[in-house]
């Protein structure tokens, strides 16, 4: 082994010993495999409606509320975004089957440029996530059963 190889080898061992991948991070990565096994591939929600696109539309659910509806095979995501404080939004909504039945249990993840905000799907398929940064987001739904799906990035 060369001197450089030895040093890089030592550094590699140092990193592995002193700074290993956190077990919880590995578990989360493994979970993606379960999701893939459930659906074989990431599925993309299609945007069906966006109250922000309706010119002059008033908010349906309250002042400043924006409603979006996404769909993917067998699933409908009904999402509401409400300003919470400057630069932050409160997201709430529900994941339903195509027949309108709630999809209980699972995780909803709002991905944004600085990280993620997470919430749980309750027994009625509902969720609420606070402090979602205004700006580009993508929503990932990971129901306990069935495939997971993700929206394209949009600006909220």
């Amino acid at each position: 082994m060369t001197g450089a190889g030895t040093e890089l080898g030592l550094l590699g061992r140092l990193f592995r010993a002193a700074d290993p991948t956190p077990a919880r991070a590995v578990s989360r990565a493994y979970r993606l495999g379960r999701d893939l096994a459930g659906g074989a591939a990431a599925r993309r929600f299609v945007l069906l409606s966006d109250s922000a696109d309706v010119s002059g539309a008033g908010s349906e659910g309250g002042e400043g509320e924006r409603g979006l509806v996404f769909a993917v095979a067998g699933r409908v995501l009904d999402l509401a975004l409400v300003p919470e404080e400057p630069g932050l939004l409160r997201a709430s909504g529900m994941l339903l089957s195509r027949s309108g039945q709630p999809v209980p249990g699972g995780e909803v993840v709002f991905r944004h440029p600085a990280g993620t905000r997470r919430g749980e799907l309750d027994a009625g398929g509902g969720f609420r996530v606070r402090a979602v940064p205004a700006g580009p987001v993508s929503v990932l739904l990971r129901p306990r059963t069935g495939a997971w799906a993700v929206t394209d990035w949009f600006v909220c």
Partner: protein
Amino acid sequence: MATVTEPGHSCGTAVLVRRVAGGDERAWRDLVDRNGGIVWGAARAYSATRADAEDVWQATWLSLAENLHRLRDAEALPGWLVTTARRESLRLARARRRESPAGLDGVLTETADDGGDPESAALRSVLAARLARAFSQLSGRCQQLLRVMAVAPEASYEQISRALGVPRGSVGPKKQRCLRTLRQRMLALGGVEEPEVAL
């Protein structure tokens, strides 16, 4: 120069990718196990904190899951993962307006809670601490380059150049310069004799 990848290894990766695309959860875990060190190394090389690196780690695997069907060359997977981790890290850094790499500044203090296992005991050895200190005194770019090369020793210079976004011809000279500086720092801190003994 290092070889690109061992033939058997790349063949195995190609098979794993096909199995994952077919919904094989076990194959996905194998992919994570096989490439986790590279992804974590790249995430740490370009992230300011372990918490940021965890976000980058997850975003990288999520991106792979989303783009697996587009991956044509399994051999290129490690490079793709490093590139993705670097981009995710820089995106996060821009968003948080922090550009400094983690390096090893906090590696002896900001480590996993792994108690008193033998590896931790070794880490506390004088030489390991000295190596960590010498590494932390390198420039950010040197830390990033050496960190990625240390966790992906089989990567070719071409893969490294693509993954880190640096000219291919500069990888070798930069690596030598960074290692030379590392040796000088080690010497200044008290020597590099018999490093194998301590680690």
